């Protein structure tokens, strides 16, 4: 690995490469383990790929040049404690609630409610150091660390996160809520959480990832979650982002579904300076169902980019996708939805829809649906719309006594409801409803 050169690399790239060498040096002879070999490969890939520029097709509208100019502390020790947590207005969360502060698991703040015979929860750091055999079969097997620079970076350098394992034939009633908090009160902080969620055959579970920033410095979160949904299993997966305007969030959720399984997701971006979500779902079995919902409500100069890939590999599956955006002020949005229907995937039903409302002349939305279909007996459709609020509807409401501002808010709220109501963890849904209401005050 010593051959890595970085003459023209950004400061952030140089910093990360140096970081990797340091961590390699501490491996104490474990470097030969397959998992560390893989991390080495990932680092080489990252070095080769570098951070993407807008010349890269997948990053055309999302420019990370401001991110890579900055430096971030990836090793900061934080004193973040219960008292700090109490200061954040949060819903009362019950169930399995796990806290990660600057990417590091915090056992003190966390609670696990489900018995171990149903659900195993192990910090990723622990799995990596003590039980690599537990994750070797899965780690890096799904998320693309070959051509995706950020995933490569995460694969090489992720220190912590969580490994969740649901045994076969179990219904986990209590939701699993993963809360990632960037504590940037003292400095710019970077974190690279890595999560591995393995759901056994015929089991059911609800999982949420929630991201938030505390403090005024910049945060860089580069997160990767791999979810394996075994045969006939059902997974609800929610990602909720409420990060600061100075934060950069780049996240990949890689889902692998086996036959007759069911995956239901909602990605809700309430706040964040720069957000890029990749949600990639592979349907690798028959009679699979996948639902992908998304909602983003950027204001100010926030930028939210959702890239999704739905990969139909086998026959008789269906996927439904609905992403909705409300773009205010000078915010920008991107939706790129790919659907692949492979040659084998006959009788596929795949639907994609992206609808946006732009409330200001200065906000922009870029949408790009991409369907690649190699099978001939399929039903696929896609549609995108970007429009403004309906003036006639606003006048209609006003003519009934509803002030204009309230009429606009009601309409936007109604627009968002389609996605918000998909969230089946009540406390999280109510929390989102509240934050959206608050945010739309300024629409």
């Amino acid at each position, binding site marked *: 690995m010593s051959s890595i050169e970085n003459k023209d690399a950004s400061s952030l790239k140089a910093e990360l490469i140096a970081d990797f060498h340091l961590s390699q040096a501490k491996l104490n002879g474990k470097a030969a383990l397959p998992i560390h070999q893989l991390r080495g490969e990932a680092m080489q890939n990252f070095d080769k790929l570098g951070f993407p520029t807008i010349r890269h097709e997948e990053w055309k509208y999302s420019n990370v040049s401001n991110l890579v100019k900055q430096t971030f502390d990836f090793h900061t020790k934080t004193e973040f404690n219960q008292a700090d947590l109490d200061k954040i207005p949060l819903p009362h969360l019950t169930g399995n609630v796990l806290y990660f502060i600057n990417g590091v698991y915090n056992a003190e703040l966390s609670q696990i409610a489900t018995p171990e015979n149903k659900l195993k929860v192990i910090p990723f750091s622990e799995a990596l150091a003590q039980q690599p055999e537990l994750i070797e079969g899965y780690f890096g097997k799904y998320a693309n660390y070959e051509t995706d620079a950020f995933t490569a970076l995460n694969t090489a350098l992720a220190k912590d996160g969580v490994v969740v394992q649901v045994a076969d034939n179990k219904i986990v009633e209590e939701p699993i809520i993963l809360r990632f908090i960037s504590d940037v009160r003292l400095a710019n902080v970077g974190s690279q959480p890595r999560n591995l969620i393995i759901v056994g055959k015929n089991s059911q579970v609800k999982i949420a990832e929630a991201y938030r920033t505390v403090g005024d410095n910049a945060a860089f979160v580069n997160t990767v979650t791999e979810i394996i949904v075994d045969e006939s299993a059902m997974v609800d997966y929610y990602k909720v982002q409420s990060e600061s305007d100075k934060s950069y969030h780049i996240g990949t959720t890689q889902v692998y579904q086996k036959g007759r399984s069911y995956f239901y997701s909602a990605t809700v971006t309430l706040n964040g300076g720069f957000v890029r979500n990749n949600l990639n779902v592979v349907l690798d079995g028959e009679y699979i169902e996948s639902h992908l919902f998304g909602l983003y409500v950027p204001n100010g100069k926030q930028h939210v980019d959702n890239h999704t890939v739905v990969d139909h590999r086998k026959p008789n599956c269906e996927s439904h996708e609905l992403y909705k955006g409300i773009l205010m002020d000078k915010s920008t949005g991107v939706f790129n939805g790919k659907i692949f229907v492979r040659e084998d995937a006959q009788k596929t039903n795949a639907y994609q829809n992206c609808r946006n409302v732009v409330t200001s002349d200065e906000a922009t939305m870029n949408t790009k649906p991409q369907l690649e279909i190699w099978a001939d007996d399929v039903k696929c459709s896609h549609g995108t719309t970007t429009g403004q609020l309906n003036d006639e*509807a606003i006048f*209609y*409401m006003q003519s009934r006594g*509803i002030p*204009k501002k309230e009429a606009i808010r009601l309409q936007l709220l109604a627009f968002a409801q389609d996605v918000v109501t998909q969230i089946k963890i009540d406390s999280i849904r109510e929390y989102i409803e509240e934050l959206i209401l608050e945010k739309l005050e300024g629409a």
Partner: protein
Amino acid sequence: MLTINNLHARIEEKEILRGINLEIKPGEVHAIMGPNGSGKSTLASVLAGREDYEVTEGSVTFNGKDLLDLAPEKRAAEGIFLAFQYPVEIPGVTTINFLKTAINEIRKYNGQEPLDAAQFLKRMREKAKLVKIDDALLKRSLNEGFSGGEKKRNEIFQMAMLEPTLGLLDETDSGLDIDALRIVAEGVNQLRDGKRSFVVVTHYQRLLDYIVPDFVHVLYKGRIVKSGTKELALELEEKGYDWIKNEVDALEIA
């Protein structure tokens, strides 16, 4: 109650109302008739405060207030209701929630406490009967997927719920079949209480068979060119508008 004085209004560069004068007293029903493009709907829209129109001259006072100075929602709160010719579909907002918000905004404006859930439900049940509107319909998104008749009945239902003092009915009869026409008209008649006034904009006599007006005005080229009682409507039904057009056009040439 309502005094319109020399009202001129235009949309973009086109002058549509060219000097309307009209006085409406409490309890009166005025029918506004006239050929297509005469400005009937424009008058209703201007009174309700639609932004597309610019008032260039004249005044409108409503219960002593300068109506043209008020935002549409304030006009509603003051007691004006416009039943739309083309009611708007609003996905995601149920009729019930919409009306709850509207009623309580109007009450707030008038310094009243909001209706509680029980009071609201009671009023809703009562008024739904007036226009034979189904409970299930009210739980759906406002006007979304409603038939033409359902939309118009919903307009009258909303009017009944909001209890305005002046109802403006903009071609409420268009797109209705015989039964729906009767139901809608009967709903309006039950809201006639001697104090509440109505302006009924219509192209045809048929609605006026049910809602019998006190006065009938004929609008042509943006002016009221003839006023009379309900007999005028019958005459128009029989003879059409051409004789009035000819009269007016002849005068203009002269």
